[in-house]
């Protein structure tokens, strides 16, 4: 059992983490969440008082890529995550026990973790053949997800497969795979799509919970605004080339070597909502556009079928005559998408969000949890909200609630 009175910061220093490293962590999380720098101390202070959060991490029809992405976390480092921030109780790729001993750590969850736990689901959930296209411990994965997700403080679906079925749900798969929302409708769900998920968005979501005692604000598809609120295209380092009409026309050509826009080779940046260009991968080392290949839209719903083929432009992107050129499209899009740019990272955002979404979630959680979470003293009074009535203008006008692709057409 963890000791609620024993704060994280005390535990961290006992384990040799320096104050400086801890402050750095707060700053990194504030950046990832697009909060102003003044929030870093607040995050640091809140996380200091939080006990290690128990995590039950389930893996279904997936490739393990999200686990691998998680293990490459840099800020906080994976060692800090596993030893100091989280208590990963069940994770079949990482845990020492096997068989029944492993299963025991995710049974009787309410008694075992009286202060609550996070569920993380990676991989899709098959529903054909009684769900036996993915069985764990001789039982369908579907049943395990229900069991664990329903009682969790929050369930984070990471990666495209857990969000909406991903590869197994692509046409032809044959297992009727679905995401978490379809098998555990009662779960308090945060969807973090991507193939694989960007680990910065996972750690930022968890840090947000630890710091503000609530989950980050999400859209109608349960995607946090901080990560999936902006178009790749608007944040892209090659955006200026799009506006200049400078395009890569063939792999390896002069434009490719000069780092021009990949739109004509099928880049889905103009249709995709994600923060890849700003957060990037491996601590800002690179991302696919920087490395020379366009976006494939992997954060978008059912992207294998809706965003393909990877190297052709989407016919549905623009409501123009078929003979319109990318250059013309570019001029139109500049006006169109700019108007829809999602502003985030304001103090208003954080304040508003505490008052609404979190309040609602906490209220729901309170009724479900026999014992309130030990971090509850950090929370404001639960105020069952009327989201999005009080949403700030900057997010209320964002075309995020459903099918962003169809709403961002320029006029």
């Amino acid at each position, binding site marked *: 059992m963890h000791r609620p009175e024993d704060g994280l910061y005390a535990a961290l220093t006992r384990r040799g983490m320096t104050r400086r490293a801890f402050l750095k962590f707060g700053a990194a999380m504030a950046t990832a969440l697009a909060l102003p720098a003044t929030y870093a101390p607040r995050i640091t202070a809140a996380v200091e008082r939080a006990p290690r959060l128990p995590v039950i991490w389930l893996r279904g029809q997936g490739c*393990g*890529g999200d686990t691998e992405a998680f293990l490459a976390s840099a800020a906080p*480092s994976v060692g800090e995550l596993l030893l100091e921030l989280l208590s990963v109780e069940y994770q079949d790729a990482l845990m020492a026990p*096997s068989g029944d001993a492993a299963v025991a750590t995710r049974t009787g969850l309410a008694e075992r973790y009286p202060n609550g736990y996070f569920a993380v689901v990676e991989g*899709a959930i098959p529903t054909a053949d009684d769900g036996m296209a993915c069985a764990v411990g001789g039982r369908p994965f579907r049943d395990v997800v229900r069991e664990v997700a329903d009682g969790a403080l929050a369930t984070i679906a990471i990666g495209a497969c857990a969000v909406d079925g991903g590869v197994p749900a692509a046409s032809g798969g044959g297992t009727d795979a679905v995401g978490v929302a379809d098998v555990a409708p009662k779960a308090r769900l945060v969807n973090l799509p991507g193939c694989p998920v960007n680990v910065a968005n996972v750690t930022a979501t968890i840090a947000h919970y630890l710091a503000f005692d609530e989950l980050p604000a999400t859209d109608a598809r349960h995607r946090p605004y901080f990560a999936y609120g902006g178009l790749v295209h608007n944040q892209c380092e090659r955006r200026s080339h799009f506006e200049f009409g400078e395009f890569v026309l*063939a*792999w390896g050509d002069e434009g490719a070597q000069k780092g021009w826009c990949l739109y004509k080779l099928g880049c889905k940046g103009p249709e995709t909502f994600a923060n890849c260009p700003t957060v990037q991968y491996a601590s800002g080392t690179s991302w696919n556009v920087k*490395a020379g290949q366009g976006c494939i839209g992997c954060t978008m719903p059912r992207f294998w079928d809706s965003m393909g083929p990877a190297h052709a432009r989407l016919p549905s992107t623009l409501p123009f005559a078929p003979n319109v050129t990318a250059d013309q499209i570019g001029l139109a899009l500049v006006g169109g998408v700019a108007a829809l740019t999602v502003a985030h990272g304001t103090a208003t955002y954080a304040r508003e969000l505490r008052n609404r979404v979190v309040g609602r979630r906490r209220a729901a959680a309170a009724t479900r949890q026999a014992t309130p979470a030990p971090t509850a003293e950090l929370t404001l009074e639960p105020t069952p909200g009327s989201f999005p009535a009080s949403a700030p203008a900057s997010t209320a006008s964002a075309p995020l609630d459903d099918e962003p692709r169809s709403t961002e057409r320029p006029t």
Partner: protein
Amino acid sequence: MTRLTIDPVTRVGGPLRVDLDVQGGVVRDAWVAATMFRGVERTLIGRDPRDAWLMAQRICGSCNGVHGLASVRAVERALGITIPANARLVRNLVAGAQLVTGHVTGFYRRQLPDWVDIVAAVEADPTAASELARSIGDSPAASVAYFRRVRERLAALVDSGQPGIFAPSLGGNGSRLTPAAALVLGAHSLEALEWRRTMTRLQTFLGGKSPHPQTLVVGGMALTPPWGGPARATGEHPRRPQTSAPAALSERGLHVIQMLIDGARDFVDQVYLPDVLYLADAHRGAAELGRGLGNLLAFGDFPEDDSDEPRLLLPRGRLMDGDLTTIDAVEEAGIAESAAHAHYDAAADLVHPSDGRTEPRYQGPPPPVATLEGVTRYSWAKAPRYWDDPMETGPAARMAVAYAAGGPAGSVIARTLTNLGLAPDALGTTIGRIVARAIEAKLVVDRLEGWLTEIRTNLASGDLAFVDISAWDPSRWPAEVEGWSLGESPGGALGHWLRIRDRRIAAYQVIDGSTWNLSPRDGRGRRGALEEALVGTPVPDPATPIEVLRAVHAFDPCPACAVQ
């Protein structure tokens, strides 16, 4: 007689179940079942062959990128494309970095908990640990103060009552390692976690992200040098605002990649290889455990030239019945799969993958599944066979073939085995597989710098080509054409087969190294490689089947690769 089920087998690349029939404290029979199916081969059908690698690489994110490479190679063979030398070299670098990453993290994360209970490190004397660390390796972090800090960190974890993934393992049962050794290996497994980030950086430079690198293109790589060559710093209009990290093939980027490669090699030389040799040395006499089929198959990989039959860093070949003197050639026509004991609508016959089909239908018992004994179709994995024989693949097979082929690699392998007092045929045992993996990581990590140097030489001489787009336009493709590729994933011999008809994928089949190793029985009832290796394993107490777990993890099996 005792029936023993381990489900889930943890620390592997996907859902895996092992059922055992134990008599007199020894495994008499074994059933290995991959319990997940996704249908990637099926979803590929109808798609643009130029996109195939993107979806195929999603077969596995732990064996990151290898299926993308196998797929793009199969398409290139179908379309008759020879990729530029630079593209081959970058692909070798990415795949080589992945193999080294997989082997090192596999040892510390997936295999080590079977040999030592890290929790025991809490009892260790930091002075003894420091002395031990200095005697077995060259890790720069080996001071008494360092080990005291690590011990305190682990102790705090245990004392908190929330050990998390470090919950006590069975590895302490009958462990031959002292608490000091547990502390050294535990400290190194934490370091391996952090070291892995440098490898992720290397792969992200060359792949744009990791897992699932995104710089492949049918015909080569999407990665390009800056206009005018790597030395040319400017020349872009307008200049990119991005300044956090250099472009991979710029002068500065190549320099950073060089440093990352140095870091990779240092860790293998100073920490990983010494640790593995120490573990193997401490378990002398246990070498017979986990002895498998003795039939070893390696497709080989890492082409060293651009010919049709290139020289391979890891050679191709087949060894039969434990005979390490005669290497048979590998013929693509000899590969076939049987679905006799798998959940598919298929006859029991062996079918060549170019004619293979994947029609899933679960045919096991209804849940909850109590036992697999007596169940005809018990796994989602098909049973691949080579000229009708079950084969073991993976690092042990690759190192055995390299040993048999002789040369500099062969003598490195021979010397290492001799120092450990192991016979060459002991590569096909539990200890041998773990040692083979470490030797292979050493051979590959030592070659990374050479590939990078070749790229730099080519760029300096004005060869800026990374892609051949002559076959990019589908209007030039034949109406129907077939392609395949044979190579290696970290887990073993990997093949992709596809047929392109009317510019679309008409058929797609994958056989991974883990498909061979996790194979269920075939139409003639012969066990797969892991099943065979488990037979004869001692299980004195069914509550602690530690030797079984060691044998399974020594294969480092990947169910996600085995069943797509």
